[in-house]
Every structure is written in structure tokens, then in C-alpha cells.
């Protein structure tokens, strides 16, 4: 239990979220709607996109999100975070970009509170976060809503979105991050 779970355990369990939420109350597995619900609950302003009953439409998903945070807490206390799990080739590539400490879940050399005082930290953490929020709202879903629910349901718009996710991710990984991290 302390070791990371293999893909053939993790993947099917993640996929089971779709039927679990349908059976619980006919809810669609999709996480990024929570970002919209949080806006609607806090600063909706006069923006039409945020004028809806967020408790009724999003209460269940916000409870789900709270659970995800709790799950992360529980699992991190049963996970040996000091072990390096990625392969040697990935480790070498990251080392060439200056990322040597591959322990834990986030790169400690890049992501810490002090990093927010550097332009690199602001671009990756604040800029990256804003791109996640803007992009998922525009695309109408994220990895859960499009890559898992949408693809499993055979929906063409989700396939287009997933191809977009990878195009953006590859662009950032191969062209932008090497410049940013140098």
C-alpha cells in the first residue's frame, strides 16, 4: 500500500469515477466546472456566465473537490515521497534543464513560495494557473471532462479538445520550458 500503484490499478479506478457519479445521482465526471462554481460563489459581478444557482448545479461537484483535497492529504501520509519514480531518461532530460531534485510530487527547486519573487516562478505558477482556468473554461472541460468522460462516450468535440491539450502541452514542454528554465 505504501508503494505507488501501478497503471493497471490506477487507470481502471480513475475510469470508475464515471459510473460512480452517474449511479450516485446522474452527475457527469468533470472537474473544471468547479472553477466556474467558485467564481459564481465569490465574485460573479454582472457577468452572465456566472449568473446561475451554483449551489444547486455545482454543490455536488464542490463537495467532490473538497473530497479530492482530503484524499490528497490522506494519500500523502501513506506515500513514501522521497523515492524517485520516473525513469532514468526523464531524469537526465530534467537534469539538463537544471531540475535535479526529482523527489516528491512537485519540483522543489522551481515551486516554492520564494519562487514567486522570480519572473520564472510567476510565469509558471501564476501564468500557468491562469492558462488552466481560461483554457478549460473556453474548451468546456479538462482532462476529466474531455479526456476521460468525453472520449469514453465517443464524443468528437472531446477528441478535438484532447488533441488541443497535447498540442499545448508539447509546445510548452519542448519549446517554452527549455527557454524558461535555462
Amino acid at each position, binding site marked *: 500500500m505504501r508503494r505507488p500503484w501501478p*497503471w493497471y490499478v*490506477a*487507470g481502471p*479506478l*480513475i*475510469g*470508475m469515477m464515471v459510473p460512480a*457519479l*452517474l*449511479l*450516485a445521482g*446522474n452527475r*457527469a465526471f468533470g472537474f473544471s466546472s468547479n472553477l*466556474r462554481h467558485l467564481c459564481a460563489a*465569490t465574485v460573479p459581478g454582472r*457577468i452572465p*456566465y456566472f449568473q446561475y444557482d451554483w449551489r444547486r448545479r455545482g454543490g455536488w461537484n464542490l463537495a*467532490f473537490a473538497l473530497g*479530492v*483535497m482530503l*484524499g*490528497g*492529504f*490522506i*494519500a500523502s501520509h501513506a506515500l513514501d515521497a522521497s523515492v524517485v519514480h*520516473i525513469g532514468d531518461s*526523464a531524469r537526465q*532530460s530534467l537534469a539538463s534543464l537544471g531540475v535535479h531534485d526529482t523527489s516528491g*510530487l*512537485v*519540483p522543489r527547486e522551481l515551486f*516554492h513560495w520564494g519562487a*514567486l519573487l522570480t519572473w520564472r516562478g510567476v510565469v*509558471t*505558477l*501564476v*501564468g500557468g*494557473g491562469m492558462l488552466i*482556468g481560461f*483554457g*478549460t*473554461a*473556453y*474548451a*468546456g*472541460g479538462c*482532462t*476529466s471532462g474531455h479526456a*476521460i*468522460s468525453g472520449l469514453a*462516450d465517443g*464524443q468528437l468535440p472531446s477528441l478535438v479538445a*484532447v488533441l*488541443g*491539450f*497535447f*498540442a*499545448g502541452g*508539447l509546445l510548452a*514542454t519542448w519549446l517554452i520550458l527549455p527557454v524558461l528554465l535555462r
Partner: protein
Amino acid sequence: MIESQAKEQLGIYLVIGTCFGVIITKAEVISWFRIQEMFRFQSVYMYAVMASAVATAGSSLFLIRRLGLRDGAGDLLGLAPKEMGSGRRYWIGGMLFGLGWAFVGACPGPLFALVGAGATVIIVPLLSAVLGTWMYGRVRHRLPH
């Protein structure tokens, strides 16, 4: 009565969410390193996780439809179809999200799990993501969909 029913229902989603948080943390799919490894094609791990997740979700959806399962209100269980429209929102929005995904090394669900797992600085991209969604709401009427 209605109040207590609503609370009970939220409890179900809290429990399912907790399971999801444990799964994605134990599977390391919330790891920045795993996401980098995926985008560098240096391991099949993430692709195998995603493919088996889609296969499991797809076969469950097939079964649920085949059995004609319904919810309490009598509606058939299933996912609403997404409108293609011009398709631009999917590839442009998708690419913008993809850039952020690689920068932060996490998508929205994992952002929450990472904060719970003690990576407190991830509160910054999480709040930035809320701000990004707010900005989308602000300019939505001017964007092609």
C-alpha cells in the same frame, strides 16, 4: 427533511471525491515529473493510465445504457452530448489549457489533491486558475465558439 436529504447526497460526493484524491495521489498522476515524462514520451505510464481509464469508463457507460438505468427522477443515466459548433473553442481552449498543464504539471483535479498533499505553493496556480476562468467569463461574448 429535504435539508437532510441534500446533506446526505453531498456526503456521497465527498466520499467519492476522497477516493479519487487518494487514487490520483497514490498513482502519482498528480506529479509534475510524471507529466513531464509523459510530454517527453519517456514513459508509457501516463498513457496506459489514461487508456485504461477511458476503456473502463467506456465499457461502464455501455453497460449502464444497455441496462437502461434511470435516476430517482426517472431520467436515463448518461452524459449530455457536447455541441461541436465551429469547433474552435475546443482546439483553441484546449491548447491554452495544455500550455498551463505542462507549466504547472497538473490539471484542475490534481491542483486540489496537491494542496491537500501539502504542496502549499500550489494554492497560487489554483487561485490563478479561478481568476483565469473569471477572465474567460468576462470576455466570453467576444470569443469564437
